[in-house]
């Protein structure tokens, strides 16, 4: 019983972690993309459709990643090249994604989906309790963990990561030093889109292998909250994603068992935790200064 619950927590947490990792990189570059939900749902519909057409869930996953990335470039073109307001553009990206995916996926409703099968690593997955939990998961779970390590290493231990943080801290200074602000931000937005697309693909290829309209159900917004919750640090993102995942699952079980806690309270818990963490981190001046991208959301227009 407990093992089954823990297994589903990882499945619920993976799309949150992936989408949030992508957004973390985007925000570290100083761009606020509120279109995560829209990019996720585009990934979900593209992933489902491509899997149906090709008969392979792997092709579906690839399509999901590409769809998210492609959709993010619309945001990139508007906010980076045309310097539009990032908040408004991100919101419209979400609304557009939800509508567009509903239209594209109309014929998919009710079709049985293809599921990306879990990989059980021989030997390791036999370990009691943690074996199933860590070594018998779906492939995207492994990708999400590998990506967390990669993003952490990239952001804090490579020169490119230092450049990314510099651009997010002050695009004016970065431009003065000759860093290519717009190009770096385009790449970050592209990565964010690909991650959100993959997260959407996880929903329609692993979590619930089918297509329903609005199937992201606000997960893109949770991912956005998670980035702030994690104070832009990749490892805290894992903690946050699993916390949110656990609460989601606990909600289902509490309802099924008839536990007397209102489900609304449970769904609100992670947000309360986010507020609590925000208050905590803002009291540490050095941490805040170090990790909050100071030029977040500010459009950059180079002087000519």
């Amino acid at each position, binding site marked *: 019983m407990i093992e089954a619950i823990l297994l589903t927590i990882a499945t619920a947490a993976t799309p949150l972690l992936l989408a949030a990792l992508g957004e973390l990189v985007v925000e570290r570059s100083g761009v606020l993309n509120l279109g995560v939900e829209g990019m996720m749902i585009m990934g979900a519909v593209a992933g489902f459709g491509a899997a149906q057409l090709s008969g392979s869930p792997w092709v579906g996953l690839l399509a999901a990643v590409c769809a998210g990335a492609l959709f993010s470039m619309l945001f990139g073109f508007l906010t980076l090249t045309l310097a539009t307001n990032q908040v408004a553009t991100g919101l419209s990206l979400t609304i557009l994604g939800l509508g567009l995916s509903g239209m594209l996926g109309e014929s998919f409703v009710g079709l049985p989906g293809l599921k990306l099968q879990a990989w059980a690593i021989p030997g390791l997955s036999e370990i009691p309790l943690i074996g199933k939990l860590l070594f018998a998961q779906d492939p995207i779970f492994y990708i999400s963990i590998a990506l967390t390590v990669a993003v952490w290493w990239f952001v804090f231990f490579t*020169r490119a990561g*230092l*450049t990314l*943080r*510099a651009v997010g*801290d*002050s695009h*004016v*200074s*970065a*431009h*003065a*030093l*000759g*860093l290519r602000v717009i190009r770096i931000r385009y790449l970050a937005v592209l990565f964010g889109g690909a991650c959100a697309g993959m997260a959407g693909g996880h929903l329609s290829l692993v979590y619930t292998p089918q297509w329903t309209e609005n199937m992201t159900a606000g997960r893109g917004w949770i991912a956005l909250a998670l980035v702030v919750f994690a104070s832009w640090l990749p490892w805290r993102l894992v903690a946050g994603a699993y916390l949110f995942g656990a609460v989601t699952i606990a909600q289902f079980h509490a309802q099924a068992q008839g536990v007397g806690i209102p489900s609304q309270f449970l769904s609100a818990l992670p947000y309360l935790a986010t507020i609590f963490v925000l208050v905590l981190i803002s009291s540490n*001046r*050095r941490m*805040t*200064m*170090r*990790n*909050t*991208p*100071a030029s977040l959301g500010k459009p950059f227009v180079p*002087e*000519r």
Partner: protein
Amino acid sequence: MSDTDEPPTLQNTLLKVEGITKTFGTLKANDRVDFDIVPGEIHALLGENGAGKSTLVKMLFGSLQPDSGTIKWRGQPVTISDPMDARALGIGMVFQHFSLFESLSAAENIALSLGGEVSLSRTAAEAKRVSDEYGLPIHPDRLVGELSVGERQRIEIVRCLLQQPELIILDEPTSVLTPQEAEKLFATLEKVRREGKSILYISHRLEEVQRLCDRATVLRLGRVVAHCDPRAETAKSLAAMMVGEDIHDVDRRKAVPKEPAKQQPVLVIDDLSQPPTGPFAVALRNVALEVFPGEVVGIAGIAGNGQSEFFEAVSGERLQDRPERIRIRGKNAGHDGPSGRRRLGAAFSPEERLGHGAVPGFSLSENLLLSRHATDGKTYVGALGTIKSRALTSALERIVQALDVRKSEADPLASSLSGGNLQKLILGREFDRAPALLIANQPTWGVDAGAAAHIRQEVIDLARAGSGVLVISQDLDELLEMADRIAVMSDGRLSETIPTETVTREALGLMMGGAGNGEASAKNSPMLPEGTI
């Protein structure tokens, strides 16, 4: 620089600028600018704000592209299309508004400009070597956001020196330093010159230029008006070249106030203490001050030592714990907001002109109303809150006449005025009320010399007409010129006032440095050791 000696020095010339022109819209920011720099010289670029100095150096550093003209580096024409190109040639730049990243450590900031995968520990070691060599102490592991302005500048200079440039461009380097810090900077620059490197030194502080620079190029309205040897000139003749007319000395002869002690002070600040408003703000500690009618009191200090917080407290943007902490003309004002304090006879001119002193997207007459509705409501606002635009327009006309505000149309947006003209308007708006008390923060910051002299004279005249004036400024020369008494603010504390006749720049500099030599912010970060690098 006559053209006759050009051929023999051509090989020697490091940088030669010929006929550079840059136009923004209808404004010629640079108009056929010529000058050259030889190795081992400190070359001054002089000019008022808006003369085109920044535009010129931005083109030399690749941030802007000239419309026409050539830049020759060691005799070869070059195109500097971005800062990377400039750096590859051997041009380094120390910006006036530093191009540093506050959330990154000093070492990370330096690494970013070095190019290639250089490990942070090696960068830090290199930085330490250079900082020792040139006497520029820095802490590689500290976040730039935690450092004083002086140390930030040292990081910029170390970063620049690490790239082994042949030419270093310094943009107004001493505007943020105490006199003592400036002395250390000059020593570093002399050492750089002895090594055969060249420096392009941008400043409008003429004594510095005369002391340090071998040659000077003077710009006015985008054109070169003179090439000269600054040591052969007087400060006055240099200033005249910059402005194109003789600058009138500010007249303080009527400066003796009539026995201020016997009069009632217009402003009393009584043991004002308050906690910091945010993580980057400074606490005010036991600030006490009296301002009498007829005098100008100056508050000196390096930026970020509590001046902004002090202004907020006095202007009523932040209220005090007890009403009697601040008394204006004998009335307790500590619990009144800005409008309440204006009604008591006070007037305020904040440091930040756009967004604080004026609404950028509002016309001048609308901005006029914003500070006058409390005190002269009846004059400008009619029944049902209708704005009396005719009264406003005539008041605007009066202010524009009185202070010689230059504007392009009858009632333009505040954002379309230049800094100096907007400042004249903001001050004029307050003068027009004949306030009993004027509190001005950085009244001539970023204002060209001619307009600054005008503003200072107006402020002094207001005091001589019987008002009390409190001026907060980082410009010591300005305070020495205007003020009757000067106090120094350091780390949120205000010193006793000293009569201007008895004060010296050196004494003020030491007080401005405080105990920690300008590193007030270091005390606020106990999580870091104070150790050396």
